[in-house]
């Protein structure tokens, strides 16, 4: 038998094929950078590609110290940091957040049965994770006993180091979350952690659609709940607002159960997201919202009678017959938000026309928080004016209830629904959007809609003006969609 020579070819480096970050990936990374900078952190970023064309992106302290190194190669995303016991590795950005929560069990003690519940969407979660790691890394850098995760330790020492790192990350994350809830509930926050609260405020600023309401804040107040009573549970949802995709424009309005964030793969592939903050209330009486139970994310770990209100369930909007997997297809002009530099925005505030910009009040609020450290969207006046601007109403005196305002002013008038495809009352609606909205209203007879040229407001249970929750989508062309009201009597599936 003739000898056969088998060549064990040494693996050669791949030929240089530049596979830089995609535009959506870069948009997400720079959005995170922007949020962190706006939050008061001093940092720098840089990116590059290796000799094999694999991309990396680093978050650095002002002195150049690299605190977070993100990379994508061999089909995997990787996040390295001195603050992490081990690198985070996953098949997507979202998977990195899962890896983080696997590595650092997050102890978000929000009294699940007695108070507010936390919902964080994976898209926003990456910003939270990076912010947390950045802050924790920075603390490590200035600690008296530096920890180098790359150092080789003995087993015992390594275990101790890992434990310390996890504890630091846990406390940083916990501080972030608690601060945000304190801010929501009381309008105040821990002075020493201003920058952390700022991240949340700026997350709202990015999309300009913060919709915290007095009701939401009220139910966050301690003592309102009894064990096992979910009736007034409030969910904080940091949800995504997808950027524009020329071929498929969608607005995602779904929330994700906090506990399930890490192990769910919500169908958002192909889109990138900005952070959005929504505050809604749960009720125990809207069990008719069966559509929510069909959602693979919402259904998991969620009982049938405890579902968030005002969430647009997939089933209601599946006018094309396809599962939208948590997405609301509206086909509007552009869902992306411009990258707004706060300083330049404020400097332009005195210019004509800016006063009507829907970002104005939120910008002012963020600025007030930054400058004063103790104020912000603390009052009915702040919030009402914010929302009024967001839906392009004339500014109110701040004390008016918005729903009453809708009905008592001529700024927005009630009209019949536009015929599908015609959309006379709302020129920016395309046929699909009109059909979707019409379908929604047909299935939910208690819901009503009002239109003007630039905005549509869908509201529910207008007679109860004390518990309204409001969600506003503001688009780059200035048009808006707002949903007002609550679903105590149930949206009929």
């Amino acid at each position, binding site marked *: 038998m003739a000898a056969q020579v088998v060549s064990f070819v040494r693996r050669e480096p791949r030929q240089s094929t530049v596979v830089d970050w995609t535009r959506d990936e870069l948009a997400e990374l720079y959005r995170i950078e922007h949020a962190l900078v706006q939050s008061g952190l001093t940092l720098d970023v840089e990116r590059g590609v290796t*000799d094999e064309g694999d991309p990396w992106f680093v978050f650095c302290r002002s002195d150049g110290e690299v605190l977070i*190194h993100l990379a994508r190669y061999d089909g995997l995303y990787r996040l390295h940091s001195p603050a992490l016991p081990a690198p985070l590795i996953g098949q997507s950005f979202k998977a990195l957040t899962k890896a983080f929560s696997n590595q650092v069990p997050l102890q978000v003690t929000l009294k699940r049965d007695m108070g507010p519940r936390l919902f964080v969407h994976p898209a926003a979660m990456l910003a939270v994770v990076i912010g947390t790691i950045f802050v924790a890394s920075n603390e490590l850098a200035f600690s008296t006993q530096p920890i180098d995760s*790359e*150092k080789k330790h003995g087993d015992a020492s390594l275990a101790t180091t890992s434990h310390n790192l996890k504890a630091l990350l846990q406390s940083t994350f916990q501080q972030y979350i608690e601060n945000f809830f304190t801010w929501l509930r009381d309008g105040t926050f821990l002075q020493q952690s201003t920058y952390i609260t700022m991240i949340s405020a700026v997350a709202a600023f990015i999309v300009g659609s913060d919709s915290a309401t007095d009701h939401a804040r009220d139910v966050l107040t301690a003592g309102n709940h009894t064990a096992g009573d979910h009736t007034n549970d409030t969910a904080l949802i940091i949800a995504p607002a997808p950027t524009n995709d020329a071929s498929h424009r969608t607005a995602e309005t779904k929330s994700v159960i906090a506990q399930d964030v890490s192990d769910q793969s919500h169908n958002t592939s192909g889109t990138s997201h900005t952070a959005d903050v929504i505050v809604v209330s749960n009720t125990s009486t809207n069990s008719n919202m069966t559509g929510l139970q069909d959602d693979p994310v919402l259904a998991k770990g969620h009982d049938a009678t405890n579902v968030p209100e005002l969430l647009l369930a997939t089933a209601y909007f599946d006018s094309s017959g396809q599962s939208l997997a948590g997405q609301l297809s509206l086909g509007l002009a552009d869902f992306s938000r411009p990258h707004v530099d706060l300083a330049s925005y404020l400097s332009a505030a005195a210019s004509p026309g800016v006063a009507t910009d829907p970002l104005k009040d939120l910008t002012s609020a963020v600025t007030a928080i930054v400058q004063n450290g103790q104020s912000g969207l603390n009052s009915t006046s702040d919030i009402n004016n914010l929302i009024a601007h967001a839906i392009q109403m004339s500014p109110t005196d701040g004390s008016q209830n918005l729903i009453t305002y809708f009905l008592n002013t001529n700024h927005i008038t009630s009209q019949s629904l536009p015929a599908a495809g015609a959309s006379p009352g709302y020129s920016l609606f395309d046929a699909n959007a009109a059909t979707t909205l019409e379908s929604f209203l047909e299935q939910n007879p208690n819901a009503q809609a009002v239109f003007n040229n630039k905005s549509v407001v869908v509201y529910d249970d207008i007679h109860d003006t004390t518990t309204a929750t409001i969600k506003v989508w503001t688009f780059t062309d200035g048009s808006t969609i707002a949903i007002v009201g609550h679903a105590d009597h149930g949206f009929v599936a």
Partner: protein
Amino acid sequence: MYTNAQHRSDPKVQELRREAGLWLKQLRERRGLSQRQLASRLGSDYYTFISQLETGRGRIPPDRYRQWAEVLGVEPAEFVKTLMQYYDPVTYGILFSNVE
């Protein structure tokens, strides 16, 4: 982690870091190593770190100086001395200004 009192925002510091990166890249290429191969020999978890360093971002941790020198085929003292020129020019100047 090692802190560094230098402010990278200083253009001089940025330039020195870039020069350090180029120098490291030259050493690597002279050895015929790809970035991935160098990272492998250094036992680094992620090879993109090499590209980052060669761009002028970040620094080699001091406890890795000797290993880097060996892999790149440079005498350790000379390696550290050259690196110091880029990473810590003030100290370098004090130590070696009379000699050079």
